[in-house]
């Protein structure tokens, strides 16, 4: 374990999130068991008021996850100097097998929290709160996931061992240590480009269609998930190359560095927002048939689709602009 401020901060925030969810889990359980919207009893009133706390808490967890994804990557980037062979964040995350799973878990939690908040949003606009039980059952499912993510993160940090000079044998302590995979694996540029633009086109198309006509809500979610995967693989396999102007540097994180003018944020921000919105649009879709939600779900999901559509369009536009501005030639014209 490396004793370091950013690591302590990350572990602290994860612990607080897990603890908070663990503390309210029994209450969520009580909501599921005793909820009766028809009743005017004091207990029902208390349960209804508790729902506000749950929404606040999940919003808090969402923000915490988003912030900690950033901090996690930043920190991996900075720590890369401590490990022989690690050139950037990818190297650090590869120091032990928990690195990437921890990052992925964080990202997944972010999307799940966004989906939960979307369901929560439509539910709290319907006068009879029709999804209360489902919502809190989902919340109870989310809690162990959060715990697993926190555990993975802790494993990653605990198993980090900096390659530091020791007084006994001095240097070359690291002779035996394996060389780290500093580069992420990537596709060939041409199929990657086809995949990227294809998936972006699909995502933009599906969400615009839903935005305009209100049909195909699940399609938006599927397209958003595809768009996210294609976006990440696109960044890995060719967009990053254009940004670094280097034919073999595939790092998805260095684009966030000041050396590259923080260009990565312009890519990741719309991509993450769009994906979250697209997935959320799909998440509320199953409830379109609920009587009190028939008007609300389409309205909200169209709005979410509009965000997704614009977000994916921005992602594709930003990526294209970066490619056109670059001096690197990957494809013969």
């Amino acid at each position: 374990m490396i004793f370091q401020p950013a690591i302590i901060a990350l572990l602290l925030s994860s612990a607080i999130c897990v603890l908070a969810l663990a503390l309210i889990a029994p209450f969520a359980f009580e909501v599921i068991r005793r909820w009766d919207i028809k009743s005017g009893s004091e207990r029902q009133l208390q349960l209804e008021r508790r729902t506000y706390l749950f929404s606040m808490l999940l919003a808090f967890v969402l923000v915490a996850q988003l912030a900690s994804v950033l901090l996690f990557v930043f920190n991996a980037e900075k720590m890369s100097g401590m490990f022989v062979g690690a050139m950037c964040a990818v190297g650090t995350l590869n120091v032990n097998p928990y690195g990437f799973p921890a990052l992925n878990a964080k990202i997944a939690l972010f999307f799940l929290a966004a989906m939960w908040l979307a369901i929560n949003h439509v539910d709290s606009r319907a006068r009879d709160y029709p999804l209360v039980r489902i919502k809190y059952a989902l919340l109870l499912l989310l809690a162990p996931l959060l715990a697993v993510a926190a555990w993975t993160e802790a494993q990653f940090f605990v198993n980090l061992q900096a390659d530091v000079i020791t007084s006994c044998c001095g240097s070359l302590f690291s002779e035996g240590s394996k060389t780290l995979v500093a580069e992420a694996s990537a596709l060939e540029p041409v199929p990657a480009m086809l995949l990227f633009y294809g998936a972006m086109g699909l995502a933009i198309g599906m969400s615009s269609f839903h935005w305009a006509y209100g049909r195909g809500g699940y399609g938006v979610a599927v397209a958003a998930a595809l768009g996210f995967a294609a976006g990440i693989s696109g960044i890995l396999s060719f967009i990053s190359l254009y940004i670094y102007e280097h034919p073999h540097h595939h790092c998805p994180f260095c684009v966030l560095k000041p050396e590259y003018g923080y260009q990565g944020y312009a890519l990741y921000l719309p991509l993450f927002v769009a994906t979250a919105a697209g997935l959320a649009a799909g998440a509320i879709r199953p409830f379109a048939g609920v009587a009190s939600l028939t008007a609300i779900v389409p309205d909200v999901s169209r709005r979410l689709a509009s965000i997704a559509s614009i977000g994916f369009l921005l992602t594709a536009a930003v990526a294209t602009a970066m490619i056109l501005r670059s001096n690197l030639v990957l494809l013969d014209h």
Partner: protein
Amino acid sequence: MIELAGIRKAFNQGQHNEYWALNGIDLAIEANKVTALRGPSGSGKTTLLTLVGCLARPTEGRVRLKGEDISGLPERFLTDIRRRTFGFVFQQFNLIKGLSALDNIILPAYPTGEPRRELLERAEALLARLNLGHRREAKVEWLSGGEQQRVAICRALINDPEALIADEPTANLDTHLAKEFMAILEGLAGEGRTILLTSHDPLVTESAVVDRGVEMRDGQIVDDR
């Protein structure tokens, strides 16, 4: 306008000090009329007022507002209905100290997000109507009791509600101010607002402005005329 059917309301439910403030109320409050609830303290007048005004939900029974059943609505929606439909004048006025009269008046409209200019225009009109224009910037704790009540009335009217609910409005006023209040009430009734108030002040309950008096005791209606 508002119909109550089989209303019961309990406090401290399931505990040893459980107590039913209302015990089987059936009442219809007509629109554009002044209705007064009478009765000794502890008779359930104020509790009934909170149910009618969507400040609370009945433990049992139905509340219908213009035909729509609102008894099972969560607080979030009740608040919305309340804001649009009812204005409240409380016994203690309940103004927020430290804020000017004007700021107090526009407070109920904050959650609506209406442009400030429109709000201020409406507030000025109300202040002028109740002869308070010159006190608009005064902090409310510097105002006299009568002035405070008029500010409270302005605040109750800022969202232009159909109904005004007043809880013991004359309890903290001397006879002169109480008469002044009744005059204001008459004006509001004249413009077609539904008014519901509680009082055991004969000045109010015997007033000609009041169209209907409902007598309560022990959480039940004992007389209605």
